């Protein structure tokens, strides 16, 4: 689904969402009933220091407003911008800042929902989609940490062998289905149905806490994480 198609489905009446240098800003009335702030990354862009600070500014100004409208984060990105300039400027602080802004917005009472409709990877994924309370996705979305050929290079394993292994476990290979199984993606939406209604429905069910490890255990993509975290908490209490 293209960015424009997505917007027309989410905001059938009108919206003022713009795309500037691959960054998404604006707002609209979801399904004609629920006002939302919108940020995001479009056109499979890389997210660098300039992009992260611009998005964070928009989140902070939403938080400064009196209304606690939800913040919708639309994501079709690549990874963080890999460059000497970005690292010289301290990209880690910029991405952390954006993630913190989204998390603080949630703590201030804004629902934060990301909709992954394209790609996303690595640091850009962590600072946008994964920093929201709820991550929704559309079929065809392609989240990844690193593509398989690169993983093959780093692990020094033949690509064919990796592809074979990827079929047996969701834990390392790219793709929406794998990420859904690990609990990252709360729900995959039906593109043929009323998208706005589906997002509104998700907005009405805020998770009480970070449920992703429990989801990952239920879906089998992260067999141990939830149990380990629970065991640690239990030991900490009795120690």
């Amino acid at each position, binding site marked *: 689904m293209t960015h424009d198609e997505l917007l027309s489905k989410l905001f059938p009446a009108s919206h003022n969402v713009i795309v500037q240098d691959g960054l998404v800003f604006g707002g609209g009335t979801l399904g004609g009933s629920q006002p939302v702030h919108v940020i995001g990354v479009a056109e499979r862009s890389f997210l660098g220091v300039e992009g992260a600070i611009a998005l964070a500014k928009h989140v902070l100004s939403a938080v400064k407003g009196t209304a606690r409208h939800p913040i919708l984060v639309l994501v079709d990105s690549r990874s963080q911008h890999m460059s000497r300039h970005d690292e010289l400027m301290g990209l*880690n602080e910029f991405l952390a800042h954006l993630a913190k802004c989204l998390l603080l917005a949630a703590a201030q009472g804004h629902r934060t929902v990301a909709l992954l409709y394209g790609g996303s990877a690595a640091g850009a994924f962590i600072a946008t989609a*994964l920093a929201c309370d709820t991550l929704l996705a559309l079929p065809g979305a392609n989240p990844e*940490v690193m593509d398989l050929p690169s993983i093959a290079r780093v692990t020094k394993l033949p690509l064919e062998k990796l592809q074979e292994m990827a079929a047996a476990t969701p834990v390392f290979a790219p793709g929406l289905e794998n990420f859904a199984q690990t609990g990252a993606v709360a729900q995959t939406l039906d593109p043929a149905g009323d998208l706005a209604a589906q997002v509104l429905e998700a907005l009405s069910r805020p998770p009480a806490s970070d449920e992703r490890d429990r989801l990952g255990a239920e879906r089998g993509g992260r067999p*141990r994480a939830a149990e380990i975290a629970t065991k640690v908490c239990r030991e900490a209490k009795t120690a």
Partner: protein
Amino acid sequence: MSQATTKTQRRVSWFEATARQRLAALLDPGSFTEFLGPAAREISPHLALFSLPAQFDDGIVIGKAKLRGHEVFAAAQEGRFMGGAFGEVHGAKLVGLLRAAKAASRDAVLLLDTGGVRLQEANAGELAISEIIRAIVDLRTGGHSVIGLIGGRAGCFGGGGIIAGCCTRLIVSEPGRISVSGPEVIETNRGVEEFDSQDRALVWRTMGGKHRYLTGGADCFVDDDTAAFRAAAIENLAGRTPLTVSVLEAEQARLKARLRRFGTAKDGSEVWQALGVTNPASVPGMDTEEFLNAVRAVRESADDAR
């Protein structure tokens, strides 16, 4: 490095120490209680698929302890096992520790030493990093501090760098490197013209401890010495305030100002020049005392806008 030293105590290198040695040197003697220690044998369930050996603690040691009498929750990554990278169990141990710290109303100290996500369990590692960030923010908005200590072999890369950026305060030594894309990652993706990962001096000028301290990416610069890390951790733990929207507004202004002021610089030395360091070329060769004296008046402080 200057050879002149008047210290009578034997210096113990943080860089060379293992995760367990670092914890032992950092925390009050005998105060550490480990959670899910090696005897629990909670190893990675995924490494065997890659015919890789497991480690009983999956490369991270977690527990509670005292830091000059103050009870803290502590975690130390072992940079020599799988490059200190985050896998499912490794990450979940830190998630659990941070959640437990919140439940117990305690501060946390994180001894970060990581190449980022463990590719053999990449999706689980990436998600764990996101959960860790959320747990850190939860802890901090509740008024507790999370202090990051960086000076290990593996540096602090990938999602580890983003975790560092979420800490209340960061203590770094010269060998400590903090970045998202590591040198090899930039070179592989963008070519050697963009970044020559073999050029060690370039690596340190771009992401090394001194550069981060000079630009406000770290709050405290110490010798590669476990005793110095301990003293700094004690000092930086005291008197912190909760993470609020105002802190983030101040961080927004701070980062924006950094881009405005240094955004056109091509190299670390140009940034230091713009800061007003008298002789930027001499910065990499200075020992800790010289360096701190030379930059004290000109460095950008984060002023708790983190």
